[in-house]
């Protein structure tokens, strides 16, 4: 999925796309400049404003566009790279249909439940529980 791509991958993809577009567009432009039409204004002098627009303005626009394309997915939560580090949500408990398919967040009064402090029934398990622990 595109939102799961790293920032470096997205940057490389956008840079490659931009370079390919520039190469594709440069061919026809160069062909036109090497064979000027009779009576064309190819020998006219470019003004300072035009030079600034072409050599400064256009690159700046391209840079801004590339930055926007790279950074914009990260502004949405789904495109954010590290959802584990950004977690500040209430505890979420999701159980299957055996528990009436409830998917609840927090308690009914809006306060998050304290996970691990479960109240009654803690002695109901007989025998050894299995499983594992891990960290990342």
């Amino acid at each position, binding site marked *: 999925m595109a939102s*799961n791509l790293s920032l470096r991958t997205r940057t490389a993809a956008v840079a490659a796309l931009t370079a390919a577009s520039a190469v594709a567009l440069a061919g026809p432009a160069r062909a036109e400049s090497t064979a000027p039409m009779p009576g064309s204004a190819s020998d006219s002098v470019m003004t300072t404003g035009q030079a600034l627009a072409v050599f400064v303005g256009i690159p700046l626009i391209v840079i801004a566009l590339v930055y926007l394309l790279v950074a914009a997915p990260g502004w949405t*939560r*789904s495109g*954010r*790279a*590290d*959802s*584990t*580090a*950004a*977690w*500040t*949500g*209430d*505890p*979420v*408990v*999701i*159980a*299957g*249909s*055996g*528990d009436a*398919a409830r*998917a609840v*967040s*927090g308690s009914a009064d809006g306060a*998050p439940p*304290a*996970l*691990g*402090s*479960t*109240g*009654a*029934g*803690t*002695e*109901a*398990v*007989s*025998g*050894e*529980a*299995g*499983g*594992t*622990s*891990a*960290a*990342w």
Partner: protein
Amino acid sequence: MQPGDGFTRSQRSLLAQSVESADRSTGLSFQLVVGSLEGGRAGAEALLAARGASATDTVIVAVDPVARSLEIVTGVRASRRIDDRTCALAALAMTSSFSAGDLVGGIRNGLQVLSDHGRNSVPRHIATT
């Protein structure tokens, strides 16, 4: 991010589907808990115990994104279908995705591993005796 919006609606729906699918394929009862887990392993076992009579067929998957810890607890009968090695394999799959920042994908991968190994076996041959 404001408290309470840890998952988007679509992410929550995906997780509910995964839990539901694991329940159906194994016949066990899965419970996914994401959030701060008091007491670590003991807290997860207390969650299992709180299931009461159904605790023996329950699998608790508790993820604490802030403490970066994961607990998988299986009830007595559930542990016969999903042994500790399978839990370790699922934990490895999950923590690999978590390390890359993919919380939802990691949980789904782990549930998939657990349900694959705990699946109700279907006889694929006819007894000839």
